[in-house]
């Protein structure tokens, strides 16, 4: 873990150095820009809490990517799964008025998990039983979810007045526990961190998690050792979808309180980057989501005070990912073994008995 942090920090510094060079060439002050970025992300109590709020959905989608990629199931549909979860939560939310708050919130989250699990599970079933490439099916399901949301807020879910394409607000009892208003800080981050710990335990401390990782590393070997590939495929993609779906429900419960079009700015895709930077480690995903949240959050302040486009932050994010992947030792190891596979890595020491 520490090692991973060190690597991420190095990549971040290297990316910053490259950006500084670009800024200098453009005649802007790198120090001013970075200071504004940091100020916007951490400079005030409000900025700090908002960084956390922005990181929250990225933790959920990052975890969704982590569990599926660990099993070599390339789920590109976390965005659609998050939206599906949000739709389920937004649809059921207005009817939870009569329930005590903890239960109402729990129902909302379960609805979100179910929505996402169905969205992911369909792709899992298609992969396991019909050998449909999950990359394609999950991408396609993104569009289905987006269109379903659009249809919902224009049609059956539209608010009472019918004036705006948005759904009826969810009941007060289903709204997430908020801390320190007027900041937007809420219990969602707690749920996200708890699920990150859960995913870590599942992947690295349980027998099922081991089977998932084995399948991810070598599917063919896994079949030889009685690992139930088909069942795991469906299970993993359903779980992956559920994690993203809970993220959607948390967003509805804590922030938007209702559905509207373009609910997700692409959290599902940013989640891929978040997970890759964390090398799929669920605990690392919390840290990497906070980094991405901070960059997102700080970029507005940077644009206002320094006149540098907020898009610069996306360049920084992309640079961090590329630098990390370029220096990933595993990537290097894979490359080496492809160049000279005939060379065994361990040899007998001189004077030792022959390799026998």
């Amino acid at each position: 873990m520490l090692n991973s942090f060190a690597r991420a920090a190095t990549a971040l510094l290297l990316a910053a150095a490259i950006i500084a060079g670009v800024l200098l060439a453009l005649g802007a002050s790198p120090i001013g820009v970075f200071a504004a970025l940091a100020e916007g992300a951490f400079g005030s109590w409000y900025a700090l809490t908002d960084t956390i709020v922005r990181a929250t959905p990225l933790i959920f989608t990052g975890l969704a990517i982590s569990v599926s990629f660990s099993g070599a199931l390339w789920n590109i549909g976390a965005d659609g799964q998050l939206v599906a979860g949000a739709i389920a939560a937004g649809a059921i939310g207005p009817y939870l008025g009569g329930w005590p708050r903890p239960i109402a919130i729990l129902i909302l989250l379960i609805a979100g998990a179910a929505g996402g699990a169905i969205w992911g599970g369909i792709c899992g079933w298609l992969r396991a039983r019909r050998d449909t490439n999950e990359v394609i099916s999950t991408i396609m399901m993104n569009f289905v979810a987006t269109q379903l949301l659009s249809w919902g807020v224009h049609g059956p879910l539209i608010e009472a007045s019918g004036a705006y394409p948005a759904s009826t607000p969810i009941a007060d009892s289903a709204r997430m526990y908020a801390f320190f208003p007027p900041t937007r800080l809420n219990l969602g981050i707690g749920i996200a961190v708890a699920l990150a710990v859960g995913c870590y335990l599942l992947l690295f401390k349980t027998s099922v998690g081991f089977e998932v990782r084995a399948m991810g590393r070598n599917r063919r070997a896994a079949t030889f050792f009685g690992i139930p590939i088909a069942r795991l495929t469906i299970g993993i993609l359903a779980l992956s979808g559920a994690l993203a779906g809970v993220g959607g429900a948390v967003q509805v419960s804590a922030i938007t309180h209702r559905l509207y079009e373009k609910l997700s700015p692409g959290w599902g895709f940013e989640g891929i980057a978040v997970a890759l930077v964390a090398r799929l480690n669920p605990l690392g995903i919390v840290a990497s989501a906070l980094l991405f949240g901070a960059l997102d959050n700080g970029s507005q302040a940077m644009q206002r005070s320094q006149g540098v486009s907020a898009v610069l932050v996306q360049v920084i994010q992309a640079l961090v990912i590329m630098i990390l992947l370029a220096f990933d030792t595993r990537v290097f190891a894979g490359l080496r073994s492809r160049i000279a596979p005939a060379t065994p890595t361990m040899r007998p020491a001189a004077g030792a008995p022959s390799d026998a």
Partner: protein
Amino acid sequence: MLLAKNITKRFGQTLALDCVDFEAHRGEIHALVGENGAGKTTLMNIIAGRLRPDDGEASLDDAALPSGSALAALKAGIAAVNQSPMLFERMTWEENLALGGFETDRFDLAAVSARARNLAEHLGFKLPPPGSTIEERSMAERVRLEVLRALSFGPRVLILDEPTGVLAPSELTSFLDLLRRLRGEGRIIVLITHKLREALAVADRITVLREGSVVARTTPAETSESELARTMIGELPPLSLATPVFAGAAAVLSIEDVSLERGGHRWLDGVSLSLRSGEIAGIAGVDGNGQTELVEILAGARRADSGEIRLLQGADNAALAVIPENRDLVGLILEMTLWENVILARPLRERTTRHGWLDRSRAVELCGELLNRFRIRAPGPEATASALSGGNRQRLEVARAVAAAPKVIVAHNICRGLDLAGTADVHRTLADFAAAGGAVLLISSDLDELLETCGRLFVISRGRVRETRDGERDAEKLGMLMAGDWS
């Protein structure tokens, strides 16, 4: 003349080659023999420009070879064929050959194919049907394609790294003939092998490497198989003996009338056989006659179209352990740690799992025990499987199978690429397992291995299996049976 002088190469802490001199002359077949890890492949990789030596230099006909450039070595006339064929699985063989010296300027596959046919005819090769992809071809065909690709450069030196490990007996003779013919054309053939019989049969001169140093330079006339073996490993491994078959012992595994059809090809055709406890039974066959499919079915990775596989004595699934053919692709997950590889075996995974939670320390402990008990040379349970040498990977796989305490072990080509000592070790472990009441089904294309270790012997050809009769237990008759001559 190919000359390498004073070659030294280190990998980290270990000295792979220590001031090695090597020379081979025009028109000779030069066998380079030695155990796994002796440095044979490293030496050839240096000569072929794939590795840069720490010290020393190589030259061909008095022209120095630039070190560390495979392209320069190729241009100088040195072509090498790898231990395991390096071909693009999903591409056709013509496309694969197009990457060799048949290549025209305009990527003309028809021309490539025509030139390949010319050369193949000249060499007495049979080429695969046009347009078939590599993944459909047998190992022997892949090796032939690799040789063809190497020869397409018209090399003065041809280096072959363990080319015969994957060849059937019937293919071996013609392959050795091919080497003699290439020698006749005035080329230098360097044959890397640890099969001493082959080296003695075909080589003009033999260089023996041990632990990174040349320990002998000799000719077949001056030496013998046992003397070579002694030079190579220092001591002779005890010969393993065929285990007696307990005639009265009950059958533990019975395969009844198993058939499999896929893609219009009948891979398995009414296969029936039974195994009794205490025996090592063998199935001899040329690769690609249904062995892989049979193993997959036994492992539960594939379902048969018809027929039945029964484990008797009320045994459950854990009673059968399979050691698949390709240890690097199927048997082990190279990027995972050794203890993780150990618990890939389901019974061992269950033994180290409590209420769904993996007991990591127990798994590490179990792995450590196996490393000790089976004398597997490894840095420790936390090392990745990729850090092990081929022989130790195979020992780990066999150890894992035995540790799962099955009734039956099915082992497929497990000694391919292993040296004498490694092979003897693996066979001893299997013999001990059988002596303790287990049953072993050894599926192999290596007749010497089968004749040495097996009691009852079966033959597989085109998906059909039959037991050999008395008087068929010699290499020649078995070779004919393997070729499908069952009259």
